[in-house]
């Protein structure tokens, strides 16, 4: 396989609703931002140089459009070039990066656009004047239609069963430890201009917010957002040709889908998708599952719910099983801690624009390695970062991306 680098990043603000834009205009904006990011670094490319697109768009009901990618294709000037769409639940973004990587690594494309977009809040309940019931209605079809959907399975309830079971088995995370994730990620978002939910809050605020699905409270949950995020990926040959000074190489790509029926898993409290995706990504990047905390500088995790971030510390090998809760109490994942997790604010701070989210996380991690994360920049010493995406029924999908900046390592 050929080496692949991220050479451009474009992320639109994550908002509750763009009243003035269609989803294809949002996608155009992110593409333009990524091209501008290239141009700012002295990389002279335009949309005409892009050879192919991989689109991450989760849900037809959000966009009210089957095959939404083909309409974007026309708007962003990618007509008459190949375009493929990925839809893998909440992990759509991470999987889209994986497939865009594959497109360049395989030699199918030398310059590939990796573009995620979601505009969910046109789903609207006329009777109540609210978007939430219809957005959740649109998500609910992700559950198994033969049994789990008719029984009432929803996103929060599917995560809660895993978090509760994990606590039963390992004693982590407690409700207060989960609340610390919410405090950290809402707080980190204060320094991220694209974030939807920057907030200075306390553990008490989280504990006192209304219960959504025990033990998750309102402030333990991410909000759904509208946004677009975009990466430009280049082959090694293209990196040389364009004279890219600070390429962020993708050195590890791991993905795994575990059993979508939570009750079929060996242990309900473990996300095997996470564990297997992490091990695969680390192996490809030549890193060590048992020592990963000391080999990377920053991790952008998929914190759709606070408890899930704590479980991910353990499953991704940052700390042993059962110690995730204690690790956040000790400040390990804080900016300035042992391994900063979600300095961008993550999903809890930025919002969750499903297809765009994993691409935003990967883009944020790449900006960190480049030293371009402005006010939420963390210290880069090892020159490596991780981006994490999970989703689908019972978080069955997982994709993990490892990136390196060779300059920063020197």
């Amino acid at each position, binding site marked *: 396989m050929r080496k692949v680098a991220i050479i451009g990043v474009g992320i639109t603000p994550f908002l509750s609703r763009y009243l003035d834009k269609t989803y294809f205009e949002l996608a*155009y904006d992110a593409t333009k931002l990524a091209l501008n990011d290239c141009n700012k670094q002295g990389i002279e490319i335009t949309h*005409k140089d892009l050879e192919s697109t991989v689109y991450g768009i989760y849900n037809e*009901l959000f966009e009210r459009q089957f095959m939404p990618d083909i309409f974007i294709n*026309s*708007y962003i000037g990618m007509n008459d070039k190949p375009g493929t769409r990925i839809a893998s639940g909440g992990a759509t973004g991470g999987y889209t990066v994986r497939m865009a990587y594959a497109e360049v690594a395989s030699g199918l494309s030398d310059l590939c656009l990796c573009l995620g977009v979601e505009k969910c809040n046109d789903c*609207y309940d*006329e009777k109540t004047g609210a978007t939430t019931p*219809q957005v959740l209605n649109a998500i609910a079809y992700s559950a198994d239609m033969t049994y789990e959907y008719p029984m009432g399975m929803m996103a929060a309830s599917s995560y809660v069963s895993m978090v509760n079971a994990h606590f039963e088995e390992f004693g982590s995370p407690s409700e207060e430890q989960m609340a610390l994730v919410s405090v950290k990620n809402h707080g980190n978002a204060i320094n991220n201009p694209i974030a939807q939910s920057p907030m200075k809050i306390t553990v008490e605020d989280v504990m006192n917010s209304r219960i959504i699905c025990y033990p998750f409270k309102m402030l333990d949950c991410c909000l759904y957002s509208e946004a677009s995020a975009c990466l430009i990926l280049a082959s090694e040959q293209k990196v040389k040709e364009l004279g890219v000074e600070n390429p962020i190489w993708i050195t590890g790509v791991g993905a795994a889908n575990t059993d979508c029926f939570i009750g079929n898993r060996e242990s309900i409290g473990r996300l095997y998708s996470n564990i297997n995706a992490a091990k695969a990504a680390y192996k490809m990047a030549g890193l060590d599952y048992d020592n990963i905390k000391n080999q990377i500088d920053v991790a952008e995790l998929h914190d759709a719910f606070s408890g899930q971030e704590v479980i991910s510390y353990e499953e991704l090998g940052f700390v042993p099983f059962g110690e995730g809760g204690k690790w956040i109490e000790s400040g390990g994942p804080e900016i300035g801690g042992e391994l900063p997790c979600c300095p961008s604010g993550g999903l809890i701070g930025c919002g969750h624009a499903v297809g765009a989210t994993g691409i935003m996380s990967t883009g944020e991690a790449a900006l960190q390695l480049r030293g371009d994360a402005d006010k939420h920049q963390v210290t880069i010493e090892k020159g490596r970062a991780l981006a994490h995406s999970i989703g689908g029924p019972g978080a069955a999908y997982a994709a993990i991306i490892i990136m390196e900046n060779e300059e920063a390592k020197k």
Partner: protein
Amino acid sequence: MLEEDQEIFITKGMVRADFDFWVGLVMDKFYDGLQEKKFIGTKCSKCGKVFLPPRNRCGDCFVKAEEFVDLPETGILKNFTVTTYKITERKIRKVKKDIMVGLVQVDGADTAMLVPIVNTNPDNLKEGMKVSVVWAKKLKGDPQDIAGFEPVGDG
């Protein structure tokens, strides 16, 4: 294997979500224009291409196309087809009168749009013929305001 007289379990219902789906700034303006019997297109700020129906980004130039232009009621029939079948009339299958649809490029526009062809019969249709809009009797600011296009003079 199913037994001949076996009862099977079926869940009924449909996959749906309710929407307040906005068509976007330029299509909104386009539909407002129809209600006033006007065609409003957009023009690319770089190559000058005129879009009808309008769109606010020119993909080829990768720039905004936000200048609105008023376009006339006449155009050229680029292409057409005739159908005798209507999906909403499944029972009778055949429609009473043949339906003609075509792609019409309104004068001054660089793109063609899908419209019904009316007040003529299929034998009279020719690619390249001149056509003119027929507005609906009641205008509501939606796609049905365009009742169709009809041939002008001898085409």
